Every structure is written in C-alpha cells, then in structure tokens.
C-alpha cells in the first residue's frame, strides 16, 4: 500500500503508524545526492565490496556479476568509492537537467 503523496489528517494512518513493513522502497532518496558513483567496468573485479558497504543497499548485481548503483536510492555518500579495492568507482558531480 503506497500512501498518498499528501494525505489529509483523516487519511493518515492511526497515530502515524506504518502498517506495511518494508515500505521505505516507496521513498526515493536518490535526489539527495550532489555526487554520483560511476563504476568503470574495465577496472572492476566484481568483488562486491561496494555492495557490502553501501548503507542504502543501493548496489544491485547484474547478470554478468557487476554491481551497479541504483540512482533512485543512492544518496551519494561515497563510501563505495572509498572502499573499492580496485579504485574503479569515481564520484562525479550530479547534474540535474
């Protein structure tokens, strides 16, 4: 159940409870970032360190074993770029068109 974007006080669940677990996926935090991680797949060794360290679980493994950031949720903290042993992740300026 996705809450209405702007619920009235009558539509808000009792005591502001969230009766559905895991609904934070509806809340896209990706627009917070000023820097975005960009993975250089030439250098990537598919170790998954970025996936382990990402506090937002924003890395997703693809069918070839590479880990790609999901920009809908990545807040741009840069932990992945710092931790990557192959130094294949660069933080680039987020540009909103």
């Amino acid at each position, binding site marked *: 159940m996705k809450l209405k974007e702007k*619920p009235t*006080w009558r539509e*808000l669940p*009792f*005591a*502001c*409870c969230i009766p559905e*677990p895991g609904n934070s996926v509806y809340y896209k935090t990706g627009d917070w970032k000023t820097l975005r991680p960009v993975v250089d797949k030439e250098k990537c060794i598919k170790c998954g360190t970025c996936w382990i360290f990402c506090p937002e679980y924003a890395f997703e493994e693809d069918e070839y074993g590479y880990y790609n950031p999901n920009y809908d949720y990545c807040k741009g903290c840069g932990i992945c770029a710092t931790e990557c042993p192959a130094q294949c992740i660069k933080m680039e300026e987020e540009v909103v068109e």
Partner: protein
Amino acid sequence: MAKRRGIEVSIAIAEAARQADVDVVSAYPITPQTHIVEHLAQLVADGVLDANYITVESEHTAMSACVGASAAGARVFTSTSSQGLALMNEIVYLASSLRTPVVMALANRSLSGPISIWNDHSDVMNERDTGWISIFANNGQEAYDLTLMAFRIGEDRRVMLPVMINFDGFILTHVIEPIYIFDDEEIAGFIPPFEPIYRLDPDNPVTMGPVGVPDVYTEAKKQQEVAIRESRPVIDEVFEEFAQRYGRRYRAVETYRTEDAEVVLLAQGSVIEAAEVAVDHLREQGKKVGAVELRLWRPFPFKDLKEALCGNTIKQVVVLDRCISFGGQAGPVMSEVRSALYHEPKRPMVVGVVAGLGGRDIPLSDYVKMFEIGEECLRTGKEPGEEPELVKIVGLRE
C-alpha cells in the same frame, strides 16, 4: 459489597492498578516516588499480581518502558511525581502521540529549586500540553475510583490515549483515609481486556513512531488534537456507568453551593474540600459564596465551565493556582479559565491568586482572604493593587 476501610491513599491506588489487572508496571523508585509502586512491586514479588515489574535506571526509561509495553499490547501502569515527571517529559509526549494508553498516577508535587518535593501543581502544569487526558482527584476515594476509570477511558478504542490521574502529594498520598475498596468480583468486568489498534508483533510488523516529515507532521498533530477532544463523550460515558454501577458520580466540573452565589473560588485537587469548609464558614456570615472544581483538566471542559459560571448569579470568580507562570498571568488555570469565558456575553470577572506552593498549608483565613480579594474586585470593578498583572500570592510573608 465494597467495604470502607482505613487505608493509605497510595496503597489504595496500587490496589486499583492490581484490580485493573495490569500486565506491566515500570517505575523508578527514588524520592519523590510514593508507596504506590512499592506496593505493586511487593504484589508482583509475592505472586499476588501476575505482571511484569520492570525496574529501570531513570524515570525517562520508566516511561519509555511503559510506551514500549503498551505498544506491544500490555495494560500498563506507572506512577511518578515532581522532578521524576520532569525527567520523563520527553517520553510523556511520545505516549500520547503514539496513542499508547498508559495510565499514570501522578502524586502532584513541586519542582526544584530550591529543592522541594512538597505538594503543589508545578509538575502537572509542566505537562499540560503533552496530549494526555488529565483528571484531578480531591481525596483518596476519588483517586482510587479515577485510577480504575482511567484504564476504561484511555484504552477505549475511540480514545486510545494515555491518562494521568492527579492527586496531591503528601496531603493525599501519605495519609490514611476511609476508602471503599471494591471486592475483586465487584469490579471485575468494569474494565474489559485491552485491544490495541496496532501492536508490536514480529509476525505482523508495523512501524510506530516513524519520522514525521514537514509534509506529514501537521496532519499527525491534528489527528491527535481531534482524538483528545473526541475522548470527552467517552469520559462522560465512563463517569455515568461508574455512577450507575457503584453510586459515586463524577463530573468534569463540580460545583458547591453556587446556586445563588456571587463570588466563587475555582480550584483543583484537595484544596477544594478545604475551600468548601471556607464556603460554609462564610455562608454562616451571610456571604453569597461558592466553590467550583475543575476536575477535568484535559480535554478542557469548555461547555461545562461556561454552564457553571456564566448566565447565572456568579459575578466574580477567584481562581486558585497551585503553580506560578513566571512573568505571565498568575497561573495556567486562571489564564485558561479567563480566556475560555472571553466570548461569553454574560460572564463573571476572573481574578487569579496563587497559594499552597511547595507544601505551604492554606489555612481557613487564607481562603477567606481569597474571597475578600474577589469581593474587592467586584466592588471596585478592577483587580486590587497598583499593578494588577502582578501575581497575587496568598499566604506570603511580605
């Protein structure tokens, strides 16, 4: 049948919590605590009460444990006073906003400094806007009865709010009074099982108390405001059912000899009984005086108060506050009573006095003085003194 017996008021309140069959009690046993939780700890230790008694390291944690237990679906009771309540303050707000119907017996006492835990209403007035239902008892019997009713009111699915029952520290908590204590069978059934709307349950996870972003917070607060206002008919219903079953009737606003009164004293808590003695004393001298008790503090009984004070013979109300609003208008009760009457076309004048701070006794002569202040206002049409805004403290050494 209930037997009337001599019992310490604190113990009677603990007995009410036992008879309500509480599941969890959490409290911190330091001064200014009372015998209420001590007796409950004994009952749990003796196996008389099947409840979880959670000992904690502070009052802040005591209220946190209460909120958590209530969120898990337990019937929860706690008791505190004075600085203990002040330390709880942060979580007191959470109990009401999370809609956890914790019942708190609040032995009203002063706040430091200078260091004091004697009786006045500084502690409860500090919690005025926390969103709890707040009811005053003026003797031991009322404190016992209202503690039982608090569970019925707070846990009602139309309410789901925490309730604090106020009774004067020391003056009530530490004295032995004759109180009708129900036989357990007699009160059984008065308080149905607690059925929360949401509960913490690993098999059906919910999130309680999430972040309220600016887009949501205002709506959440409106919901809470509507909830406490809508508790009023339930409070009346419970008072009525209690009266039907047990013969003792409680009202949001109580009056004493106000039928043809011109000057009335309005107060809360045990002082009202002393004020009634003063009324009798002045009536014997032919003075048209009466007393009004503001029993229900939150939700504020606007309609009842107007019915009691407006459109009748009452011309002057003297409000006795047991707490100072520093740099403001006497005390919170006076300023609320006066502004509640503001729009009434035929309203009495309202003057505020402060007395009985930090355990100071209020003798009969001081009640007489309060009525005299009221009569002077009535005679002159204004408040006495060169600076009418100055807090008028009765019983002060000048």
